[in-house]
């Protein structure tokens, strides 16, 4: 990288950070002046979280001009080894969610569809491919990948999606194949298989990054990842209190760092601070909604483009989403991370995400959460373009009602495609469900 290029990058970053700081200060001001009849006061740290994520994407804009290599990875990818090699890491799924909340997803998805990508494909994939085709993004600019890493522990779709990206960007694709876990424990041969793939990935990643992986750095990243995941788990567990200090919908927003900045020290600091604020709210009896009467579980991905609406429809009747299997996924694996044996423990950690396990396991998880958080019901988001997360929900719904006596609603929508969302249908189903709950 040339001297002038580096200088421009530094200037760009400085300016960008200043702009983000200004936005945060303004947002904090607005939060203080907040008055609402339905929802509780917003988190003070919400603005800081937004700034944190903004700074992360800002860094990405200048990653190449600062001499760093860039990796695009799936949400369940074993990212620690990449961070230890100083890759700048892009999560297309997170970017997709940003487009979803910013309501720009439809625009870029139509670009992908015009190029021939079917509307039956995952809306994250369409958002990502569409963005790659037209370059329009709310985060400014996304750096091209020098390396692609796809791990099948969340779904098989990523296999085909990342192959398209590999072709588009002519970038090497590292595939980590994690066998599906039908039973409670990962069989030793599965752990060994994943471990060998991780070991084989190291020289490839080293070659592309131009750096050597040191155990010291890898352990440090694993330590940071573990601590952040533990803190995130604590954040979610604060919702055992009544009223729940932070709704699952707010958690959907605040989970960005644990997914896309896991292993960074700022992530640890952020969640530690968030925990502090939640404890303050608990002490003051402040909840996510003004009148908490019913506590609910959300299963599946969020409906990114309707978060606020859903919070209000539920909140108006005193219902609040207290927990979700989705946010839980990024905390529950913390115990498996062993910073002393980072690669070995990664082989296990990355086999155990909820989406890599049986539908029976998800049902058991939901039942456990019903008890742990003292919940009154479950909303199962039947996500049109996420079959792995949605398959089995019909049976899970029946079993939750039958075995636990908790009413569960199947709500059809899509995580990122607003064209698959019917206002009237959703409002109707929620209204009927809330009546059943007895709000």
């Amino acid at each position, binding site marked *: 990288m040339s001297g002038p290029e580096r200088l421009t990058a530094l200037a760009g970053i400085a300016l960008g950070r200043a702009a983000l700081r200004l936005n945060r200060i303004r947002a904090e001001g607005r939060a203080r002046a907040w008055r609402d009849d339905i929802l509780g006061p917003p988190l003070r740290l919400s603005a800081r979280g937004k700034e944190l994520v903004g700074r992360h994407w800002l860094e990405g804009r200048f990653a190449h001009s600062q001499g760093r290599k860039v990796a695009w990875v799936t949400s369940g990818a074993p990212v620690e080894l990449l961070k230890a090699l100083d890759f700048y890491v892009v999560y297309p799924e997170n970017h997709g969610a940003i487009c979803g909340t910013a309501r720009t997803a439809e625009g870029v998805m139509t670009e992908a*569809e015009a190029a021939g990508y079917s509307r039956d494909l995952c809306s994250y994939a369409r958002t990502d491919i569409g963005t790659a085709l037209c370059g329009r993004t709310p985060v400014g600019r996304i750096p091209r990948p020098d390396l692609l890493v796809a791990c099948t522990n969340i779904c098989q779709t990523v296999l085909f999606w990342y192959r398209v990206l590999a072709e588009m960007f002519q970038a090497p694709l590292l595939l980590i194949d994690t066998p599906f876990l039908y039973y409670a424990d990962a069989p030793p041969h599965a752990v060994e298989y994943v471990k060998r793939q991780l070991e084989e990935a190291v020289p490839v990643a080293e070659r592309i990054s131009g750096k050597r992986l040191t155990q010291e750095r890898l352990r440090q990243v694993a330590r940071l990842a573990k601590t952040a995941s533990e803190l995130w788990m604590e954040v979610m567990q604060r919702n055992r209190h009544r009223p729940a200090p932070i709704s699952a919908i707010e958690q959907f927003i605040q989970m960005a760092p644990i997914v896309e900045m896991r292993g960074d020290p700022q992530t640890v600091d952020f969640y530690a601070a968030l925990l502090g604020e939640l404890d303050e709210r608990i002490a003051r009896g402040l909840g996510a909604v003004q009148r908490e009467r019913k506590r609910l579980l959300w299963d599946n991905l969020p409906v990114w483009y309707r978060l606020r609406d859903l919070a209000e429809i539920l909140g108006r009747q005193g219902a609040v989403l207290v927990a979700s299997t989705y946010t839980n996924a990024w905390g529950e694996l913390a115990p498996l991370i062993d910073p002393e044996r980072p690669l070995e423990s990664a082989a296990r950690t990355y086999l155990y995400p909820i989406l890599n396990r049986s539908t029976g396991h998800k049902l058991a998880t939901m039942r456990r959460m019903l008890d742990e958080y003292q919940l009154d019901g479950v909303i199962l988001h039947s996500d049109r373009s996420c079959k792995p997360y949605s398959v089995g929900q019909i049976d899970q719904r029946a079993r939750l009602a039958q075995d636990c006596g908790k009413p569960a609603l199947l709500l059809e929508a899509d995580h990122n495609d607003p064209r698959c969302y019917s206002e009237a249908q959703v409002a109707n189903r929620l209204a009927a469900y809330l009546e059943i709950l007895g709000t």
Partner: protein
Amino acid sequence: MNAELQACGLDVGSTTAKIVAIDRAGRMRWWHLEPAEPRVEEQVARLIDLAGTAGVDLQTAPLVATGYGRNLVAGAARTVTEITCHARGIRQEFPGGGVLVDIGGQDSKVIHISPQGAVVDFAMNDKCAAGTGRFLENTAARLGVALEDLGRLTLSSSDEVPITSTCTVFAESEVISLLAKGVRLEPILRGVHRSLVRRLVAMIRGIGAASPLLLSGGVAQNQAVAQLLSEEMGRPVQVSAHPQLVGAYGAALTALEMRPSRA
């Protein structure tokens, strides 16, 4: 018999049936259009008789059948799909190629025609009524608006209310609830038309947007569709002078080309 009538085209669509007779220069000399009937073979026979009384001699003037019911036309010299026939028919009016958007009663198609007149690529929406005339018909009926007034009324307002339902049937409910809330008719109509046009735009972009943009089919007579499509695509749109007959006309031209001599 009228010896001038040298070839015949019959387009048996799902909403309307059209028959066209042309002369040796390929000019349209006689045509007839009527709503499609469930008993296709009977209607076809009647239409052919009608052509006979208009002077078409099927012994000498070949007939090519196209459209949904094309395989039910006894006496057809050949059957050709509506894609090829529409491309042939529109080429007579607009030589030089382009993208034809044909919006029928129950289906819509987009055909990319090369400057030499060949079909390069095509897309059909024949699974879902949104994006077809049926969508407009249903909503017009619900709103108590005559079909022929739709375009004018739609364009009379610059306000627009988005219709979020992608399904024709649910869009109807949405329209009713908007009316119940007191929203004015014209902005609703604009939203309905916008939905239709956006479906078309998705199909057009999937084909690759060449120029010029040509319009045919019953719905092409709706000036609001033409205008909104032009807006969305950022290009002028040219409407066929005989929008509903393009398929039958193309079939007739194909029949003419089958004649051994042009004497």
